[in-house]
């Protein structure tokens, strides 16, 4: 016997966007992804190389707070 699917409700879109409550439960936040989305939305993509360099700098600064700090600074 073939499986039957429930009738579709024509008033609602098939892929309704999640509500705020649903999104708050399921969204995985990412600073980097949001940063790129922001640059795209504000037409500032030309700033993305600056952002990448700053993120590398941020990584270096983050590592400089660990036991690796004397080695990290010696690299420069």
């Amino acid at each position, binding site marked *: 016997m073939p499986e039957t699917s429930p009738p579709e409700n024509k008033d609602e879109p098939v892929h309704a966007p999640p509500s705020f409550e649903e999104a708050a439960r399921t969204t995985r*936040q990412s600073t980097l992804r*949001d940063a790129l989305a922001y640059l795209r939305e504000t037409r500032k993509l030309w700033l993305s190389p600056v952002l990448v360099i700053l993120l590398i700098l941020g990584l270096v600064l983050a590592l400089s707070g660990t036991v690796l700090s004397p080695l990290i*600074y010696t690299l420069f």
Partner: protein
Amino acid sequence: MSTRILGISAFYHDASAALVIDGELVAAAQEERFSRLKNDDAFPRRAVSACLAEAGIGIEDLDYVAFYEKPLLKLDRILETHLSCAPFTFPQFRRGLPTWLGRKLFLPRALASGLDGRYRRAFVFTDHHEAHAAAAFFPSPFEEAAILTVDGVGEWSTTTLGFGRKNRIELSHELRFPHSLGLLYSAFTQWAGFEVNTGEYMLMGLAPYGEPRYEALIRERMIDLKPDGSFRLEMHYFDWLGGSTMISSAFERLFGAPARAPGAPIEQVHKDVAASIQRVTEDILLRLARTVAGKTGAKHLCLGGGCALNSVAVGRIQREGPFERVWVQPAAGDAGSAAGVALFVWHHLLDKPREARAGDAQRASLLGPAHDTASIRKALAGRGLCAHELDEEALGRRVAEALDEGRVMGFFQGRMEFGPRALGSRSILADPRVAGMKDTINRKIKFREGFRPFAPSVLSEDAHQFFDVAPGEELPYMTHVVPVREQAATALPAVTHVDGSARIQTVDEARHGLYYRLIQAFRARTGCPVLLNTSFNVRGEPIVCSPEDALRCFARTDLDGLVIEHFLLLRDEQPPDAMAALAASGPPAKRASPILDHILRPEDAHPSRRTLMQFGLLLLVLAMVSGGVAWRGSGDRKDLAAGALAGAALFACAFVPGLGRAMYRAWMALGALLGVVVGPIVLGAVYLVIFAPISLVRSLLGRDPLGLRFDRNAESYLSDKSTHRDLRRYLRLY
């Protein structure tokens, strides 16, 4: 099932937490009260714990955690500033960027870490000024109202205008950085020798002693002010775009005097300049109030942001502005934004209804922790102090009697206040009829500047007889300065400022309970329904939070007595030894630390076992790599073995008590020293290679992305602002 929302404000200044359960503001507190560090900006762990304890819940029980800013918008403003003003912004670039990249940018991680990883849903991020607006409107007693928020700066906005109705707020206009009334006032605060972020009250208190001789000069040279209250500043006089202070040397030249050093005598020029900038500030706020009234047609106004704490200006807006009533969030600075953002989630994002209450929903701003009799007994136990436990009637009578005799009393009862004002729960009280009382308290107890005024608490039903307020008008938060009636000014010399004004608190039975009944007892004894009320702290320290804090403050000052709930302590009855021991108790005095502790971060000075393990492994790897390199050069396998042995020995040494810690500290000190030299070089190289050329090109192309130039022909500098329609945007960092 209840919905529990935690609001957080942190990482800039005045960190705080607030808890909203099903739309009720259940608890709120500032971190400084627990950490005892004034304006503490750290993640508010202890304030969060206090809020959760009030509701008897844990972090896992939270449905939403909301932060009061959008970090990427703030970073955008910072980068745009450097890309527009380089090479003149390097001091701020070098100082600010490492902090930004290390902590402030990756906020979800920092917040999750602050909550010990026990909150697993997405964080909510609102605009800085939306949080201020929410804090100003949602607890207010109005169904609908105009909203005006003014502060230093959030992301880009420094001022916003909007409208609140039922459970929604809509911000429609903004003034953008660097043109900021809050920063302008702070610049004058710094020039006058007071500390930025805490000294603004002092500048406001100093203003009535001067004449506004420099008002015209400020209007002519520093600011292009439009009729609607929007303005641009001549940034030549200020340094906050990229420097390390608020004012430039041109500022000092303009007023013909250098910035006053803290503690140096206050000259007439300081008083006159204070009077001048206060007049300009009041004019700007009045114009903005009229503008937002015109745009919204509202009868009521809600004020938020740090500038709303300028109670003199608020008083003028109430008296001279177009609104029937003005309500100010009592914690109008960034601390209050924790409450604002939590209420924003409940009403605006979850679309839960809101009913305006006749008083307001701020619950007298008594939102901090309270202490029961058992914990007070514990705090008193074993100290050798003489404390009387009294019933309420006897307590009121004894305290009123002491106040009538001219004694100054500490008064600690009920839940701690949320916001900068002591409202009768953590207060120092005195008789306002005594002419020399102000000097006595300033000199012997508060240790603060003699010119600063004290505020009166007055029974609500009697307020109109002493102050220029309408009968029955409620002003329970010390947010408005009002004129003292002429005949009352001579009767209340200790709370009447030099210009005949006072920042009043009306006290009523429903909000204030025991405090109300105490003033009633004072009135019954003296006929005066007013008390002098100042915050329970000494200069430079946060207001007391716990009974232990109150006892220490009692012992370290010349307070004549102390009330902690129903316990009364009088100085005359206390054994000197017990008081001396109490004064010396608390956090140990800072000792001179070894030189390494000045270089190292606190966590490096005291490494955990896990950190020592990582350090030992690193030494092992380094020694083995060194042995391998030597072996490749010499071909002798003994070199490899020697490297491995040395590595194993170093690894073992890392776990020898004392030795491992000393090795680690020396290693990290080497890293810190290298960082001091290399860090600025690396940052300087990035700045010179990337930021300076872009800024130069922009200048050559005539771009003005920050809007620094005056446009004399423009009618307004306000720009449009909109509230996000897609609510899921509040889960993004921009």
